[in-house]
């Protein structure tokens, strides 16, 4: 019988990591993601799977505990919300430089600064373009449902270890807090220490006579060697761009106009597509599931089919830059966003699309907001 439960998004990913064989969680409370740490603290993970859960003294300590565990080959993670993720950028950059696998969750809230605790998508640049120092990228997964919050726990760990890369689940306060039906899988057992030694020969598990010592470091003062390290990193990112793109097409086959949106905004646009179709507008939605790697090729294909693309984000226009790069001027790409924790309404975004692409300039009653 299927194990189906009604859960919050934050609880779903917490349950997801337990069932995905996670070895350790290190975190610090911050709204709107504290349920992750609370759920894991109450779940008796030590008895259930042997998973360690530790509340650190700060987000900085959390990410460096993750670094230590990951460098020793363990499946480890942390979670936070925007201001906390900003604090973690040091550790994330160090993990990028040492190619350590880990799962990170950002339940985004509005910024800048302390901002608000309401949902936002204004951390796209930080997540996708590399928020810390140096040339690096993470795989960024954008869940649009509580089920995906759950599913991306295992997917995230699998991708992290497949490519030795950091995987960030870029959620938001709405997806984290809302409750939906979740279908749960069987628990995957955690790897034993012996399995880790065999599976991850790079991990610092203690030097045995049969191998050289393992060193996890991002330091190389020789610029020639450091350039080679960087070139190899870029090769990996290119490979990921070519092989790991994920997206969802909703009513795209005959679409003349296209919404492009991820996460909560995609949920809003999905409803807007239904409203538009009821009015006879052939509108579809392309929902990027991976924000890096971005579905650029799919968007370039759709640019040959549609008359215009309407990006919808809870930001001042961040993802839209990647849409425009993908489309490269083939069709007009407009942006519409709400800021500071406001979620746009379906009729609002449909109206924006109509105003931008369907209603002629003369008939326009007002200029829609452009941010």
């Amino acid at each position, binding site marked *: 019988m299927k194990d189906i439960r009604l859960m919050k998004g934050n609880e779903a990913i917490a349950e997801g990591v337990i069932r995905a064989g996670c*070895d*350790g969680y*290190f975190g610090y409370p911050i709204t709107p993601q504290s349920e992750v740490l609370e759920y894991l603290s109450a779940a008796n993970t030590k008895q259930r799977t042997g998973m*360690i859960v*530790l509340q*650190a*003294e*700060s987000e*900085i*300590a*959390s990410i*460096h*505990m*993750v*670094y*230590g*565990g*990951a*460098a*020793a080959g*363990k499946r*480890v993670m942390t979670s936070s919300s925007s201001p906390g993720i900003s604090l973690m950028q*040091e*550790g994330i950059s*160090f993990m990028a430089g*040492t190619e350590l696998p880990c799962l990170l969750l950002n339940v985004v809230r509005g910024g800048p600064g302390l901002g608000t605790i309401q949902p936002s998508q204004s951390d796209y640049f930080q997540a996708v373009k590399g928020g810390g120092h140096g040339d690096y990228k993470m795989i960024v997964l954008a869940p649009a449902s509580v089920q995906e919050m759950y599913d991306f726990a295992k997917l995230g760990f699998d991708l992290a270890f497949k490519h030795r890369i950091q995987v960030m689940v870029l959620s938001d306060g709405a997806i984290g807090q809302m409750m939906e039906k979740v279908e749960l899988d069987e628990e995957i057992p955690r790897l034993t*220490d012996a399995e880790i030694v065999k599976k991850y020969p790079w991990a*610092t*598990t*203690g*030097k*045995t*006579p049969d191998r050289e*010592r*393992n*060193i*996890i*470091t*991002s*330091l190389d003062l020789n610029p020639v060697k450091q350039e080679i390290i960087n070139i190899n990193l870029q090769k990996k990112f290119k490979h990921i761009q070519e092989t790991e793109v994920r997206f969802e097409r909703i009513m795209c086959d005959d679409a003349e106009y296209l919404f492009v949106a991820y996460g909560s905004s995609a949920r809003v646009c999905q409803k807007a597509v239904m409203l538009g179709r009821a009015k006879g507008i052939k509108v579809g939605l392309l929902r990027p599931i991976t924000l890096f790697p971005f579905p650029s090729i799919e968007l370039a294909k759709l640019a040959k089919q549609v008359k215009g693309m309407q990006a919808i984000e809870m930001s001042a226009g961040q993802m839209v830059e990647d849409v425009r790069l993908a489309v490269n001027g083939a069709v007009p790409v407009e942006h519409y966003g709400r800021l500071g924790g406001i979620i746009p309404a379906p009729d609002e975004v449909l109206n924006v699309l109509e105003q931008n692409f369907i209603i002629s300039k003369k008939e326009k009653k007002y200029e829609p907001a452009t941010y």
Partner: protein
Amino acid sequence: MSQLLTREEICVPENEVYSRTCLLTDAALSYCPGCGHGTAHRLIMETIEEMNLQADTIGVAPVGCSVLAYDFMDIDMQQAAHGRAPAVATGIKRLYPNKFVFTYQGDGDLAAIGTGETIHACNRGENITIFFVNNGIYGMTGGQMAPTTLPGMKTATSPYGRDTETMGYPLKITELIAMLPGTYYVTRQSVHTPANVRKCKKAIEKAIQYQKLNKGLCFVEIVSNCNSGWKMTPLESNKWMEENMFPMYPLGDIKVPKQI
């Protein structure tokens, strides 16, 4: 009258009285001649070898002069971001409770940028061992003022001497963490004379042995010289250390386990 041994006669196993630990690599030490880091490295590696812990040891190297410690120590090591070594070690030890996990940090790393990580790892009673080399200055970056710099001491960023009114006082972080119930063994040593080296070795042995008891954090401060940063000869720096550093940072055990 006994005959002097020839070089060949000396180099036979039965005449061997001392040899370099096999857990130090052949890489030439990058520390300045006269600096205490090399001796501290040797003592830790000797002890790990004597206790047969190589396969069970994971070390954490910091940022600072000892950033390249992994070049010299033949064990699995992780390089941590500046000050974060106790958090990194926490992550390792929580997931590998049976391994010997240590950090090796300087005063800028441990007592300035990493103060939070240090105090909270100590306060949680993490079962790790911290080796803390205190030379009162930032050596790697060229001799700037550290939290442990003595009052009046001239550095690159306190060229007129450390003025406690505007620059604060030397931070006695070892005394501070000794007050926390999470620490089990806290001691302050030096490696500038053969007698002190022997004492320090004993302290290191205890700090490694005690980790197995899972009773809390073991902390060994090694007050050391920085002849380059202090702009002295090695001998002058050791004398200066005795006369100036030791009154501020007195050597000896600060917290010892009861009934031992």
